[in-house]
């Protein structure tokens, strides 16, 4: 018991798997979504890919607090820089600012980061900034506790000049492999694709990810919640509709939204069938970006 209560007070750390890869025309950044305090998953749907500017994003791993404060400072400096320059900052400048903070505060910080973006001079670029504040420009890079399981995978699968589709698929596959093996990584897979046309965010819910060796299909899982009545959450919007088609189908469906598990809003359906049975189902919404 002591171990668990100690864990609850442990600092939030993102066990994490983070990935950045370049492709022909831009970059794809990917991450899992688990934030843990010791053994407890504090946030199972966190967003570890943070925006620095319109064209540069940052993948964060390690201490959640440390990486957040670094990204806040860099966002501020980059904003100033963009105003002075009169044009968007380059990825190199963003990475250098992150590196200076990481290096000059190395005694206090514990965060490994990946800077990725697109600018008109160099195109898509990825910079890895691990613990200690090294900066290294690489065609692809991986970070976080889950990355240890991906080195061999990338050695085999990586190739230069992939298409956007190939790169995105590679990133999702890699993160899901890491999630399967690393206890500190889990949840959903988020990707951010950056190229000359702008930024696209994608979201892959945990149950859409492929299963790997010895992983089992969910069966009779608690996720179904078909017969247990759970307390109703505070609904912000609620509406009811009446359906009368099939006797089997619910007669009244009440839908409330915004039951937020941090960045993953859920639609909760509280239905009453014609026979008077209460059914509670829920659905995870696509992140609104």
């Amino acid at each position, binding site marked *: 018991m002591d171990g668990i209560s100690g864990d609850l007070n442990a600092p939030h750390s993102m066990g994490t798997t983070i990935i950045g890869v370049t492709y022909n025309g831009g970059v794809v950044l990917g991450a899992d979504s688990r934030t843990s305090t010791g053994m407890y998953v504090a946030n199972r749907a966190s967003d570890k890919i943070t925006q620095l500017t319109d064209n540069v994003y940052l993948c964060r791993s390690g201490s959640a607090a440390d990486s957040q404060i670094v990204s806040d400072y860099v966002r501020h400096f980059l904003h100033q*820089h963009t105003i*002075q*320059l*009169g044009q968007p900052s*380059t990825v*190199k*400048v963003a*990475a*250098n*600012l992150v*590196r*200076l903070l990481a290096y000059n505060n190395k005694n206090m910080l514990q965060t490994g980061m990946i800077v990725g973006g697109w600018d008109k*001079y160099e195109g898509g670029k990825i910079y890895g900034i691990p613990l200690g504040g090294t900066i290294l420009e690489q065609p692809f890079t991986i970070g976080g506790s889950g990355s240890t399981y991906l080195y061999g995978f990338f050695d085999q699968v990586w190739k230069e000049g992939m298409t956007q589709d190939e790169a995105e698929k590679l990133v999702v596959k890699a993160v899901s492999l890491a999630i399967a093996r690393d206890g500190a990584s889990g949840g959903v897979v988020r990707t951010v694709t950056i190229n000359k046309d702008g930024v696209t965010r994608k979201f892959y819910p945990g149950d859409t990810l492929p299963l790997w060796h010895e992983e089992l299909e969910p069966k009779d899982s608690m996720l179904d919640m078909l017969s247990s009545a759970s307390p109703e959450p505070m609904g912000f919007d609620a509406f009811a509709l009446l359906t009368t088609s099939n006797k089997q189908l619910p007669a009244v469906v009440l839908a409330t939204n915004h039951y937020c598990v941090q960045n993953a809003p859920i639609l909760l359906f509280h239905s009453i069938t014609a026979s008077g049975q209460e059914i509670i189902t829920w659905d995870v919404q696509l992140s609104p970006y």
Partner: protein
Amino acid sequence: MSSIGTGYDLSVTTFSPDGRVFQIEYAAKAVDNSGTVVAIRCKDGVVMGVEKLIASKMMLPGSNRRIHAVHRHSGMAVAGLAADGRQIVTRAKSEATNYESVYGEPIPVKELAERVASYVHLCTLYWWLRPFGCGVILGGYDRDGPQLYMIEPSGVSYRYFGAAIGKGRQAAKTEIEKLKLSDMTCRQGVIEVAKIIYGVHDEAKDKAFELELSWVCDESNRQHQKVPDDLLEEAKAAAKAALEEMDAD
């Protein structure tokens, strides 16, 4: 053209009734009395040339340089009070290295010009500081191509195709306007700048002068450097020949 601002010209923090700050205008006069500086932006780079008037025969040729390298990719030609010019160059060098150590890339020429202009302007705001008595032409080559800026003692900075300051600037500007800069390479530009400087040099009023030329272009690998000696000699010869032609007419 020039007017005396009796009573309103004692301090840089005093405006005249017609809205002028005379101290800044007087500072500009210091620039006008110096040797001519000419700079042009060609299609592949920037060429800068200075008519360095030699005060004494005892001076070593090549000393008292008027063109300074600010960073790998940019250089500055100074006209006016030499000591003030050195101060500005030092400031520009330090801005450039500081930018690179913070942002990890060479300072864009536009940014450098703005910072130098801010610094020059700063010295026109306080009664206990006098304005810089020198104008500066900054030529550099960055990711956005070759660029030419001129910063005046008032702190004003503009971007130019061609610029001239100093004694012979009026005549020099007329000559520059005749050139087709967008078609010219720096190799040709060097010859033209030499011709202009030899042309505006006043033999009667000033005695000897030394021609200082520098460039930053594709040929110099986008680094600011002195024009190579062979090209310098070629330019001087061409300029002298052009002068003789003019005299012959």
